[in-house]
């Protein structure tokens, strides 16, 4: 049977992708950001995941204002990196485990999570940046070392799904994955955040104390984290900090007790606090 081995929380700042794509990760500004992912890349090599279930948000790329699904699951064969206004990232297309994705779609709906099924979809930095930071540089003509099942969550138009809903969706995703018959190692990513506000006069807000507490909660008290209100995210972590609800989907798919194997936190990457955590399911 398929098994979720671990969860990864990770920011997906577009400028991190740009830094990798233009080869400036060694510069003073970027060094501390990437330093914190060295251990993560070694860890990924040891884990050898077959499939990554990647929770992220689309930034009006696959979904503009015409259609705003709260949860959309990628079920197509592959997903091309999108042009977000400055050319597509020079990274490989993302290949799906299509059979498993359709199994998950079916299981989720029967479990009363009525997700949208996407058979055609381009993917933006929200999905490719976490892959890049965790796997390292992979050129366009190469291949990602794992298959990827994308789950898009609406966090652009208020309200995003509640933390509690996300946490419970994580549990449903776990039961879907672990009822799939092939023996596969799966790692689930929850991406986005941490504190940041990109817009209007309060742009640049960072709340490191809050972010660090959230990382603590990820390890020690996920149920507590799942009860954080939208108002608290918006006020304390900036209007775009609400992306952190996506980490709760990842966390819901893990055991209540986990082992934190790595954590990294750095300010700033562009306008954003970069946060990262690796949690292994205890045997």
């Amino acid at each position, binding site marked *: 049977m398929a098994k979720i081995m671990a969860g990864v929380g990770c920011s997906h700042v577009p400028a991190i992708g740009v830094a990798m794509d233009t080869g400036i990760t060694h510069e003073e500004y970027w060094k501390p950001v990437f330093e914190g992912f060295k251990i993560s890349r070694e860890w990924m090599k040891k884990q050898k995941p077959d499939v990554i279930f990647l929770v992220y948000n689309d930034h009006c790329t696959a979904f503009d204002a015409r259609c705003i699904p709260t949860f959309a699951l990628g079920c197509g064969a592959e997903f091309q990196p999108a042009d977000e206004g400055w050319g597509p990232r020079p990274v490989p297309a993302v290949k799906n485990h299509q059979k498993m994705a359709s199994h998950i779609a079916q299981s989720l709906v029967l479990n009363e999570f009525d997700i949208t099924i996407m058979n055609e979809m381009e993917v933006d930095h929200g999905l490719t940046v976490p892959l890049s930071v965790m796997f390292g540089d992979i050129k366009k003509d190469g291949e990602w070392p794992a298959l990827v099942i994308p789950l898009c969550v609406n966090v652009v138009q208020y309200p995003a799904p509640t933390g509690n809903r996300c946490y419970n969706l994580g549990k449903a995703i776990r039961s879907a994955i672990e009822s799939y018959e092939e023996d596969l190692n799966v790692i689930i990513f929850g991406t986005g955040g941490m504190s940041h506000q990109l*817009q209007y006069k309060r742009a640049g*807000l960072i709340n490191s104390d809050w972010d660090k507490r959230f990382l603590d909660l990820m390890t020690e008290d996920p149920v507590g984290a799942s009860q954080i209100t939208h108002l608290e995210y918006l006020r304390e972590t900036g209007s775009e900090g609400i992306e952190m609800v996506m980490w709760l989907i990842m966390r819901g798919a893990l055991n209540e007790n986990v082992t934190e194997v790595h954590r990294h936190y750095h300010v700033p990457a562009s306008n954003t606090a970069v946060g990262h955590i690796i949690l292994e399911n205890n045997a």
Partner: protein
Amino acid sequence: MTKKEYDKIPGTIIFDADKSREGYHLNQFCISLRLQKNRDAFNKNEEAYLDAYPMSKEQREAVLKREWNLLLELGGNIYYTSKLAANDGINFQNLAGRMTGMGVDTYREMMLQGGRSIEGNRDKSEWGED
């Protein structure tokens, strides 16, 4: 309009259903600039390109004048308006430098020093606003 619980957060516009409805054509215009062929057409003749999007006069003016904060007040969302900015060669950080009125260099320096503190930035009363 009924008061919303997030109305008290200073310097912040929450892109909710009301904003989304108001900004629909403005945002659809902005997102069209994701593609090079559309950027080319827009840059060739902004007025003519905008004719295809039935936005309000005020929104149209704000686009032409690149009034970044006004665009948000009129229903624009940052992930959309940032496409207009990108077309002009302005990245997210430089756009934030403009929206905050700090200027690009001061804003960048603030971020390097750990960003804008949450202290004094939770409630409009701390900004001397209602």
